[in-house]
């Protein structure tokens, strides 16, 4: 995955989380809506954060698939 794609994904997930948190704090959306946004955005944030700061390099390989 390209570095720019990862950066956009990370920014989008962080934006959703901040927006949901702010909208809930301002009573613009109900709690369940904010929680739904978190449930969708948090996994994306975790993976894209890792992909964003991971060590470079690495190509796909074939794992051990039996004798």
């Amino acid at each position, binding site marked *: 995955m390209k570095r720019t794609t990862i950066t956009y994904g990370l920014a989008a997930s962080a934006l959703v989380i901040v927006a949901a948190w702010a909208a809930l704090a301002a009573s613009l959306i109900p709690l369940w809506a904010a929680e739904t946004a978190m*449930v969708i955005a948090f*996994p*994306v944030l975790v*993976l894209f954060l*890792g992909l964003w*700061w991971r060590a470079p390099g690495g190509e796909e390989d074939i*794992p*051990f*698939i039996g004798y």
Partner: protein
Amino acid sequence: MIEYLVFAAAFGLLLLGLHRKVIARVQLRPGPPVWQEILHALKFSFKSTWVPKTASATLYVGVVLIGIGIWSAALFVVLAGESILILFAIYMLHKIVEHGFGLSSGSPYGKFGGVRSVISAASEIPLFVTIAAIYFFTDSLLLRDIVAYQAVHGPLLLIAPPAAIAMYIVILSKLPYGPFSIVESKELVSGYKTEHFGVWRAGISVIDGTKTFVLLFAFVAIFIGAMPFWAALVIMTIVLVSLSFVCAVTPMLSPFDSVTVQGIVTLLMVGYAAVLWWVMP
């Protein structure tokens, strides 16, 4: 709210680190530091990451996202005091996620781990009987109603101890290095996790941490009731340490023995629920 998710994952990982430490001390080994699992999660997130050639890329990555998502949802369900049926539906979904982990990589180790996760679904059956037993007392499966019932009548741990023991065994079956940990036993390398490395493995650590926190927090809420948050954390830690002692002194069962023991627990729980159904007004 994001702070709840981060705290749950971090505290859950800390509990898993404590779990390893207690097991090591019981077995007269020094063991890793308590924060080792947090370090693991961070270490894996920095490593080189790719998708193996033999993997189904969509499933391989998708199960990590789904796994984190379902346990995030479970945390919110527990904190909001919603139905424990939703919680246990999520628990069942986790089985499918484990199976997906195993099958997605194309490695036989992962595949066998995935197959074993299906076999170990036997551990979920006592869970449903536990829910039935709780319902006989509380007339509701909403967590907030169960907590309110205990505020009046006392902890369900004392009122329905067999149900508490059954759920204790269910949590035991989810912990690593335990008698029922057949999905990631050493003859399968790391079982269904074998081919998920780097960032994907860090995601699995977040799943494991959140899952451990949610299951222990749910156990405390369902069987002990309302209490300050810090007290809940202390009791969760005590329950975890007791589980670690069980894991430390019990050998891992073979898959068939694991299913047999859990089947016996189910039968006992069905008998208990039948007695309750007969006796309760």
